[in-house]
């Protein structure tokens, strides 16, 4: 069978599985819809969290980014896993004890104020919308390449599917489809990695093959350092970013991870505080399987890529090269008209442009793996994008139905009506996400990276202070969140989107050499500082709030 038939078969099978699960796990109450009834097994919740968390960016873009960045790629690897330590130690167990449905619930109750709740809703919507746009785009790209349909059609198909199971099943449906999606995506990620690791280094474990020897007896990474330098790039195992920036980005990604509302809400779905703790551990194990494999794929793919293209006559390029040229993700421009591909770091001499996203998608083709493996990657990429999109859509719909309408505008609304509203809001959110998928705001991983800055500078400090600082009051928390997220937004618009100036300002203008992606760290520090100062100058929180803060610190209160 050819690649396309395999893709239709595997994508079709996986989609029917998700639909089947959605029908089987329909939500019948708001508690089902928002937190899956609060009775998910912690290991399964860990798996669902991993799928919820690992997005199109993790699956499709990350290994590619690292492949071009080398050592600097560590910012994503450490940043997106280290956040789970913060989540497990500083947030998850306490939020589970608090035991409501959403992050704005916690913000609103702990800071006894609907203003705080509304700030929470705005932050949640801003973060989730920035993030979901990238997911729909990922779905479009996979469809476009593998099923040869226009990107738009791909986006519509993805929307239809997410609409079906998110609207029908809510959190309950999403949880069980995410478990299935985790299995699909991890299998799809590991199979090519294992094959390629064996091909290149003879070791079936990619994490070990990464540090293994090639057939000519040199270590893979030494070979790659050499190849990179020959072509004028920096050594693979050392970086080109400033240390300050690497530090700031890593921290922003960690704090952002711990502050993402769609990840936090997963810890409301387990029965006990104890389960919330262990569930974060399981989630990180499931995530680490992909995250320790990704950098190995990056190194394998870069070696294969350089070998297959550098100084090869254009007439001799492999078939995958021509396939991907059609999508515009690989471009060859024969600047010196010698008919040979020069892949070099120097921008005037380089003749080859390669999109990051191609590395994972084309990797099995580069390694000449069987057609079913190539198709499997397509199914995996879709699983990653859809599972994250669904989690985000749920946050958007709960923010509107529960936090805004039920808690603020009309508290007398019946459960049945609230459930209907939640479904309606999820449906509307799918449409918005689809719009962004068709008219994407730039590059998948870049937009996603900025959502972390927003989360790091708003929720993360507000929640941590709410748990660990009994004296923190509503004035402090609101002032902190507003300054933090505004500062982050300003920096992102100024230096990333360039709306205030005619051209995007150069990186030499960055404050303290920190890029927009790393600025969440500054936003977070400013948030904490403002919150502490303001709270000490205003009245302490009322007694019942101090008691609430006290009670979430203990899994069970003795009499």
């Amino acid at each position, binding site marked *: 069978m050819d690649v396309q038939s395999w893709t239709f078969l595997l994508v079709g099978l996986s989609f029917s599985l998700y639909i089947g699960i959605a029908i089987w796990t329909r939500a019948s109450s708001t508690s089902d819809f928002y937190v899956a009834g609060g009775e998910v097994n912690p290991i399964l919740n860990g798996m669902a969290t991993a799928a919820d968390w690992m997005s199109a960016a993790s699956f499709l873009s990350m290994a590619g980014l690292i492949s071009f960045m080398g050592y600097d790629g560590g910012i994503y690897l450490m940043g997106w896993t280290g956040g789970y330590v913060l989540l*497990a130690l500083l947030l998850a167990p306490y939020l589970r004890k608090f035991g409501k449905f959403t992050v704005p619930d916690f913000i609103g109750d702990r800071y006894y104020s609907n203003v705080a709740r509304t700030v929470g809703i705005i932050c949640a919507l801003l973060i989730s919308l920035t993030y979901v746009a990238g997911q729909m785009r990922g779905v479009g790209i996979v469809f476009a390449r593998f099923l040869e349909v226009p990107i738009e059609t791909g986006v519509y198909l993805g929307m239809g599917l997410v609409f079906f199971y998110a609207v029908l099943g809510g959190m309950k449906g999403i949880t069980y489809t995410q478990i299935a999606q985790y299995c699909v995506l991890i299998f799809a990620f590991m199979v090519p990695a294992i094959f390629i690791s064996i091909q290149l280094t003879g070791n079936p474990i990619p994490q070990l093959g990464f540090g293994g020897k090639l057939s000519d007896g040199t270590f893979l990474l030494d070979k790659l350092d050499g190849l990179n330098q020959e072509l004028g790039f920096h050594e693979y195992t050392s970086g080109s970013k400033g240390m300050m920036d690497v530090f700031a980005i890593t921290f922003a990604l960690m704090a952002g991870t711990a502050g993402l509302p769609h990840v936090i809400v997963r810890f409301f779905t387990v029965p006990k505080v104890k389960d919330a703790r262990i569930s974060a551990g399981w989630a990180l194990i499931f995530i680490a399987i992909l995250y320790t494999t990704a950098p190995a794929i990056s190194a394998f793919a870069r070696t294969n890529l350089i070998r297959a293209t550098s100084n090869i006559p254009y007439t001799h390029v492999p078939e995958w090269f021509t396939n991907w040229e059609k999508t515009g993700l690989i471009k060859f421009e024969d600047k010196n008209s010698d008919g040979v591909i020069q892949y070099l770091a120097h921008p005037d001499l380089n003749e080859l442009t390669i999109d990051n996203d191609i590395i994972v998608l084309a990797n099995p083709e580069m390694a000449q793996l069987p057609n079913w493996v190539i198709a499997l990657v397509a199914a995996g990429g879709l699983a990653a994008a859809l599972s994250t999109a669904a989690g985000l859509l749920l946050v958007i719909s709960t923010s509107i139905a529960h936090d805004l309408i039920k808690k603020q505008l009309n508290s007398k609304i019946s459960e049945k009506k609230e459930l209907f509203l939640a479904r309606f809001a999820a449906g509307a959110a799918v449409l918005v996400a689809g719009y962004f998928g068709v008219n994407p705001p730039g590059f998948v991983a870049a937009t996603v990276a900025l959502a972390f800055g927003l989360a790091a500078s708003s929720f993360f400090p507000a929640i941590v202070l709410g748990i660990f600082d009994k004296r923190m009051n509503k004035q402090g928390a609101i002032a902190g969140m507003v300054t933090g997220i505004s500062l982050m937004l300003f920096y992102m618009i100024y230096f990333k989107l360039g709306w205030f100036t005619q051209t995007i300002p150069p990186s030499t203008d960055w404050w303290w050499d920190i890029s927009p992606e790393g600025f969440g760290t500054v936003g977070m520090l400013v948030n904490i500082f403002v919150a502490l100062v303001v709270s000490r100058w205003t009245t302490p929180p009322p007694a019942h709030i101090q008691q609430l803060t006290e009670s979430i610190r203990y899994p069970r209160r003795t009499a």
Partner: protein
Amino acid sequence: MKKYWSYNLKYLLILLSIWFLVSFGAGILWVEELNKIRLGGFKLGFWFAQQGSIYVFVVLIFIYVRLMNRLDKKFNVDEN
């Protein structure tokens, strides 16, 4: 009860210091020095940045879970 909380804070401090040392320390601040040491085909600093820190993170969470479960029992605040 105060004691339970101060134990908890002590655990957090220790575990988060390790979290900081392996990622920001070994993976970023001292990466050049550690890269002079080799671990098979890896330079050690690079290995911490792209592999080692992640393994340590997983271990840290499981240690935390064990410590806290023990502490809950000791102070009789565990859920039945």
